[in-house]
């Protein structure tokens, strides 16, 4: 709250994902591709294979144009983006790991220079010197992964750092090694996939078959090794986070499960076109394989980013930049007193700092469809009990009056008509909609928190009483503040549960 807030029309998650996924996809290729180049060059020189060296030079050009330009700059782009989207989190990471970033910079400098000299040295340097540059490049590229991996994994599993504050405790955190092994395997796989693409452009002859097979093996081996590493990584995620993900977080688990399909598709394409019919590998198939690689790795990154919700640094800072350590101060003084840059609209300022990191009114993760037709009292009640909603929302630590101000701000941007008018519903159907909007966020039919069985046991007369006293039934339960016609419709709907409806 010490910083202004960038009110980006799109969601923060979308922008961050777009930049980050492209970057990691190229950055891991920069490591695996470097290894592929120098290992294959060594073999080609030993075998006096001029055709393979020509192929490697071609790959080298593609490699430099991809990694040095888009790879390096999207890396800077992530830094720029996160600085705009969550400056408080970047400030924590920089102050905690400044020397790791600085080491990373020295490695990056050597890596960039080695790549340039390796590329320009193809027809200028003696083979041994050229390969030495290749090995230096790979070593420093991998070391840069080593250091950045410590910072990335810290955000999900800060481990003992939370109690000691020690740099090394944060750096060598519980998921450091599994993540490093996993990412190294992915890098090898991507090195193969990119080379697969270049090999696909060759004339359909024996040489093409040989190169396609060679690159496919890299991809298959990298993929095969990365799967147990991924399992290892999952196992080292603290049980509290893993359990919460399995029970309450559809997004990360969906991302993880999607990644398996992509992995299967990669394996299939590499086996078929890489090993069985390599000569018939068409450029379009190689592009699809690479896209599957992007999908696979992108899904993993999506999982990693979303599984740590509601935090940006688990146990330390929430996704909206609210520091866990300042809980008492926020509860005592509220949010507004902590917001350094004000727009003159308190509700808007509070909304941006408390909610806007994840939600828009009608764009990414929109509130409008979920809250249209409701009232400020209901919205304020939801804000106050935010962490109970889905298990991945940060708590609202501000004053009750601030929750009311946010609710008014949101309400002013919603459809002012009643649910009946908005959706054109009446009777039981309207009741079902009222249930979905007012009750279903915590008690979805068939989902976690489903109360169908309990509700079905109640007598018809009890429903009125239940609705009247909803806010007394449990912590965080909002009062049913809808209009009378919606209440009646809700009762009609609840009656159908008794008869087995609604399921």
């Amino acid at each position, binding site marked *: 709250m010490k910083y*202004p807030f960038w009110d980006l029309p799109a969601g923060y998650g979308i922008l961050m994902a777009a930049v980050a996924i492209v970057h990691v996809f190229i950055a891991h290729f920069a490591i695996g591709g470097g290894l592929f180049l120098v290992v294959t060059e060594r073999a080609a020189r030993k075998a006096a294979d001029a055709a393979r060296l020509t192929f490697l030079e071609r790959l080298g050009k593609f490699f430099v144009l991809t990694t040095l330009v888009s790879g390096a700059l999207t890396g800077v782009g992530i830094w720029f983006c996160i600085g705009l989207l969550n400056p408080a989190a970047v*400030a*924590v990471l920089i102050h905690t790991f400044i020397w790791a970033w600085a080491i990373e910079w020295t490695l990056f400098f050597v890596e960039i220079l080695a790549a340039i000299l390796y590329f320009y040295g193809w027809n200028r340097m003696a*083979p041994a010197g050229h390969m030495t540059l290749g090995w230096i490049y790979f070593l420093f590229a991998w070391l840069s992964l080593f250091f950045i991996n410590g910072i990335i994994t810290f955000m999900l599993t800060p481990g003992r750092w939370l109690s000691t504050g020690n740099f090394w405790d944060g750096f060598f955190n519980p998921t450091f090694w599994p993540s490093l092994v996993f990412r190294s395997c992915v890098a090898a796989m991507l090195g193969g996939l990119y080379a697969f693409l270049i090999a696909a452009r060759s004339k359909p002859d024996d040489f093409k078959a040989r190169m396609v097979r060679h690159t496919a093996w890299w991809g298959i081996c990298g993929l095969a090794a990365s799967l147990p590493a991924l399992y290892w990584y999952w196992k080292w995620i603290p049980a509290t986070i893993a359990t919460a993900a399995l029970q309450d977080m559809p997004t990360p688990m969906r991302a993880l499960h999607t990644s398996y399909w992509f992995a299967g598709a990669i394996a299939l394409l590499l086996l078929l076109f890489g090993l069985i019919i390599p000569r018939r590998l068409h450029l379009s198939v190689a592009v699809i394989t690479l896209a599957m690689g992007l999908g696979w790795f992108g899904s993993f990154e999506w999982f990693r980013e979303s599984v740590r919700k509601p935090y940006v640094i688990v146990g330390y800072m929430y996704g909206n930049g609210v520091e866990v350590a300042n809980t008492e101060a926020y509860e005592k003084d509220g949010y507004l007193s902590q917001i350094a*840059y004000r727009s003159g609209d308190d509700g808007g300022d509070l909304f941006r700092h408390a909610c806007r990191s994840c939600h828009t009114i009608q764009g990414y993760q929109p509130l409008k469809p979920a809250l249209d037709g409701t009232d400020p009292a209901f919205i304020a009640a939801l804000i106050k009990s935010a962490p109970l909603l889905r298990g991945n929302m940060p708590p609202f630590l501000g004053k009750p009056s601030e929750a009311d101000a946010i609710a008014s701000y949101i309400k002013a941007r919603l459809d002012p008509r009643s649910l009946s008018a908005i959706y054109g519903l009446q009777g039981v159907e309207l009741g079902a909609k009222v249930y979905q909007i007012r009750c279903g966020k915590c008690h979805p039919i068939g989902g976690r928190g489903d109360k169908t069985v309990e509700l079905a046991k109640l007598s018809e007369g009890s429903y009125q009483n239940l609705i009247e006293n909803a806010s007394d039934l449990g912590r965080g339960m909002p009062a049913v503040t809808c209009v009378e016609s919606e209440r009646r419709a809700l009762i009609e709907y609840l009656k159908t549960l008794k008869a087995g409806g609604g399921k």
Partner: protein
Amino acid sequence: MTLPDSNVLPGPLWLFTALHVLTLSMHFAAMNFLLGGILIVIAGRFERRWENPTARRFIALFPAAMAITVTLGVAPLLFLQAVYPRQMYSAAIVSAWFWGLIIPVVILAYYFLYAASFAGNRDASGKARFLWPALLGLLYVSLVYSSVFSMAERPDVIQRLYAQNQTGWQWNPEVGDYLIRWLHMILGALTVGGFFVGVLGKDDPETFPIAKRMFGYGVAAAAAAGLAYVASLGELMASLMRTPAIWALAGGIFLSLGSLHLFFKRRFLVSGLALFASLILMVITRHQLRLVKLRGHFDPASWRIAPQWSPLLLFLVFLIIAMVIVGIMLRLFFRPSTTSQLGLARRDSGGGFHERNQAD
């Protein structure tokens, strides 16, 4: 459980300042080579511009210079963000779109430089076609940097602009804060570019006079713009002159003129060292001005210092290793190789990039 306080500086303030000044000076040197080089290649009075060997060597070097400029730009930004996070991020957020656009613009400029470099002699007009957009891109980036970093020193401006609009489309309206300074930077780039053109083209009778002209006029114009900027500071000028900036400024001017004199005498190494030293002194002056402007808003000495000695030591070790490895790599690269040593490297494959450039 008491959570760690990350609102601390993990090393001595003087070290962050020194690292920032040093790495920013290195970034400026590389950036000036690139920007000044492009300006001179495009606007220098070459008779047959695209056939001039020095211009061609420069064009071939631009992509590598871009990579080095970007890499060297990361470190000063990192050290600056460590000490001035609130000022830096706040200014960037208010101008978020312009700031964020830097990345795609630099990517495009980078690809244009590669395109110009790959165009070879077969497509002389293509080089101009590619260099112009790259130049415009770099000018955009430099202008955004000047605008945002100037705004970072004006919390009142950030506050005012943010209250008006939160969408990140606010351009710094205090043009007087940065326009002359930006011009000073561009003219400085021309100066340093002139120096490098002179070094690379010292034996070329057409190029060296161009380099001398660029260097000479560049120093004069940059000094004039610099002095105009200092004069435009108004009341702040008196405060600035009461800091070590006055010595840095005087030393910078003296060293620039000395560098020019030595350049004309063809003593390139000493001239280059003097030029780099003057660059460092200008960066120090800039740093002092930041402190003066932020006075009353923020004092970096107010940071609580909690040094992380072992990672800091490891960084210094890696810095030394990196320097040694860079030396080894350059030695390997420039080591003369006979054809027999090249083995399979020199194949009949159309030649590599370097070979093609030499052939050009």
